[in-house]
């Protein structure tokens, strides 16, 4: 399959790969997808004063899935939680020029962001 240059760039030089301390009060973790489907994304955010100061990811999946999650961490860094929650998967699709069969990768990245925010919120609500 022919990938766009942007997908290949993110795949070969993924941004923000890593792990934040999921026990920390300031960290929200989103784990979405399933091994049986061939995609699992874990996206983590570190929040200070309602702002995402750091984001990390690890992804099991095809090149588009890795690129989508790499781009997602770049996009949400520096945003407020409300702004990050507004991020739509189509922004990832457009930026990476994903073909229709790979749109599910961008949906998964959007879900990972929302799930990480939820996790953070639920920690704060305690």
């Amino acid at each position, binding site marked *: 399959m022919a990938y766009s240059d942007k997908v290949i760039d993110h795949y070969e030089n993924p941004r923000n*790969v890593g792990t934040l301390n999921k026990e920390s009060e300031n960290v929200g973790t989103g784990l979405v997808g399933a091994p049986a489907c061939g995609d699992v994304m874990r996206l983590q955010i570190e929040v200070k004063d309602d702002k995402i100061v750091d984001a990390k990811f*690890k992804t099991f999946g095809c*090149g588009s899935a890795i690129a989508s999650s790499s781009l997602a961490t770049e996009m949400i860094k520096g945003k407020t939680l409300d702004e990050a929650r507004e991020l739509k998967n189509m922004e990832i699709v457009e930026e990476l020029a994903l073909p229709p069969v790979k749109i599910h990768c961008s949906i998964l990245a959007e879900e990972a962001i929302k799930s990480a925010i939820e996790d953070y919120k639920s920690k704060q609500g305690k």
Partner: protein
Amino acid sequence: MLNRRPDMPIYMDYQATTPVDPRVVEKMMPFFSEIFGNAASRTHAYGWESEKAVEEARTHVAELINADAKDIIFTSGATESNNLALKGAMDFYKDKGDHLITVATEHKCVIDTARYLKQQGKKLTVLPVQEDGTIDLEELKNSITDQTVLVSVMGVNNETGTVQDLKAIGQICRERGVIFHTDAAQAYGKVELDVEDMNIDLMSISGHKIYGPKGIGALYVRRRKPRVRLTPLIHGGGQERGMRSGTLSTPLIVGFGEAARIAKEEMHEEAKKLIEFKSYMFNRLNKELEEVYLNGSLEHGIPGNLNLSFAHIEGESLMMAIKGLAVSSGSACTSASLESSYVLLAMGKGDELAHTSIRFGIGRFTTKEEIEEATDTVIREVNRLRDLSPLWEMFKEGIDLSTIEWNDEHGGH
């Protein structure tokens, strides 16, 4: 010897196809413009010389499986041969019965033909396979009824390289009086085949898997003890004992014959090299990486096929990472419904491992340098992708991934 093209990845997809051996090309060349006669022209020397070349090739193709040259029917390839064997036998023997037996891991052209026959009203049994990909012989025995016409079991699986016990299967079929067909596209010229010793009645063969040209293959059709008959798919001039009409392609047949001749002469020597390369790659990957799984079996596998799963990284991304190697993957994430290899699933591999499988094909023109480079590349990229994989991290933390409740309702699968 063929030199590697510097602008291309290392070729490791010998199960998909092989380059034509330069010796084969040389043998074919005169048969395009110079010796061009129709082998069926009985009235002049142009026809006679083509016929002579065709019959010589037929002998080479037959000798590799201990068959009589007259039992070889030339076709366009193994797909056509499989179609002719299954449809031809089920139609010709329709008064004898309506049942055929095949196996879950067969090539698509057997599975799809069998399904077509089922749609046409035939009864179909698809045998499961065991973990190493072989069938349970007792299960085969129990599946044969008085309505069974044909049993079709492939010699060597195209994905995993698993070799079936053709001799034992042939014996069962002969005792029960049913026709035994084997798709030998991946077996012919790679492992010993003997139609007498193995009681094979029909055998599909491909030219381009043995360093011959594409577009040519054969069906071995037993003529004696017992005589097997088929309804043809293609009617016309009555060539090939009436079972496959159409003007014979002399250059392709000559090439196929030469490829078979070379295979007979060199397969044992070649196997030694392939086994050495395969062992080198397998042993190093196992030593330098964790969680590498062999799909198939070292004991029941052909020398040139190494199918491995690398746990916790996805097949397509690994393919992309090792783009310097031309390989094939059991995972084909090309549609909204992500499809794992049906062969690996039938062998009881979980979805996860089926998604992470890569088939490394080693062949006549593979060099030691290529194998070393390929092994280095795989080790480097598997480590890189595992550093990216949340599943790998969880595995290293000792988390049992099967205990996690995965949210798998999204993502378009």
